[in-house]
């Protein structure tokens, strides 16, 4: 009887490890479902929306301007941020608000990206902490699955004027 229980325990542990590893590989190399919180990406992604993120673009280095990405926060590696890529390395970025009279530009350094939330009034992003290294990007969000009224591929940025035009 003990041997039966022991055998069952081992089998359970074995299955847990096996499915845990498959889950890790799926999340790390393919993609997964993510719930977003916070107002910084409104109206594209609202608080408590559930989206689908893919990690293939990160591994193939094919993240582009206008993509919405999930990245590790530069000041807290255990939390994630969800923003849109405004500039890639070498791009010229307007660092002041477009309504300011004296505009200042800077260039995104090599290996970095410039992120901004769609809700410019209520978003802590690269305008606050500067460009972040590409290595912090975890995945690209491309599809919303909840709420069902907003099901489908994600919209383009409502702030088209923030993108550089060269």
């Amino acid at each position: 009887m003990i041997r039966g229980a022991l055998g069952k325990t081992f089998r359970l542990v074995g299955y847990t490890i096996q499915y845990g590893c498959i889950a890790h590989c799926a999340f790390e190399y393919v993609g997964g479902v993510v719930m977003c919180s916070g107002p910084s990406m409104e109206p594209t992604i609202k608080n408590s929306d559930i989206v689908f993120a893919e990690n293939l673009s990160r591994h193939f280095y094919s993240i582009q301007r206008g993509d919405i990405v999930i990245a590790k926060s530069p000041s807290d590696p255990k939390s994630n941020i969800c923003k849109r890529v405004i500039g890639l390395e070498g791009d010229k970025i307007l660092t002041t608000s477009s309504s300011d009279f004296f505009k200042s530009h800077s260039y995104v350094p090599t290996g970095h990206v410039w992120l901004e939330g769609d809700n410019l009034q209520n978003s802590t992003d690269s305008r606050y902490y500067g460009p972040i290294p590409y290595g912090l990007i975890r995945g690209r969000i491309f599809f919303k699955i909840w709420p069902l009224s907003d099901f489908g591929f994600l919209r383009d940025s409502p702030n088209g004027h923030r993108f550089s035009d060269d």
Partner: protein
Amino acid sequence: MAQSQGWVKRYFKAFCKGFFVAVPVAVTFLDRVACVARVEGASMQPSLNPGGSQSSDVVLLNHWKVRNFEVQRGDIVSLVSPKNPEQKIIKRVIALEGDIVRTIGHKNRYVKVPRGHIWVEGDHHGHSFDSNSFGPVSLGLLHAHATHILWPPERWQKLESVLPPERLLVQSEEE
């Protein structure tokens, strides 16, 4: 005829079963627990690669130790290069968040390491592309902690977390 076909089918089924167990477990182990890597370059001499290009050291990289991003001053760590995300660099942690560093060749003489960042340097000053060039790095880029040298066999040793003297100016008060 039917018997040999049955044998092939059973073998194929067993192979698929084994494959889908072995590959995810191995990949997860190498990503989450530990892996090995060959060190290239002279930026960590004399601790790593003292023979230059003749013999590259092979080190054991421990992911499990840094799963909560906990590092100590003096640890040798591998991280994703902030200038080139396709490359990993291996350097020593000199300062943690809140510490003030006296830099060598950086544009500012003294730098306070911001929250969530660390300051890394190669042991071979002047031949090292490290925080003196690109500033403090975010902890999110941390990849692994190099704990042992595995090859060549005469250099088999545990890597000590030793802080080079007088690199750190002021240590932060938190503990």
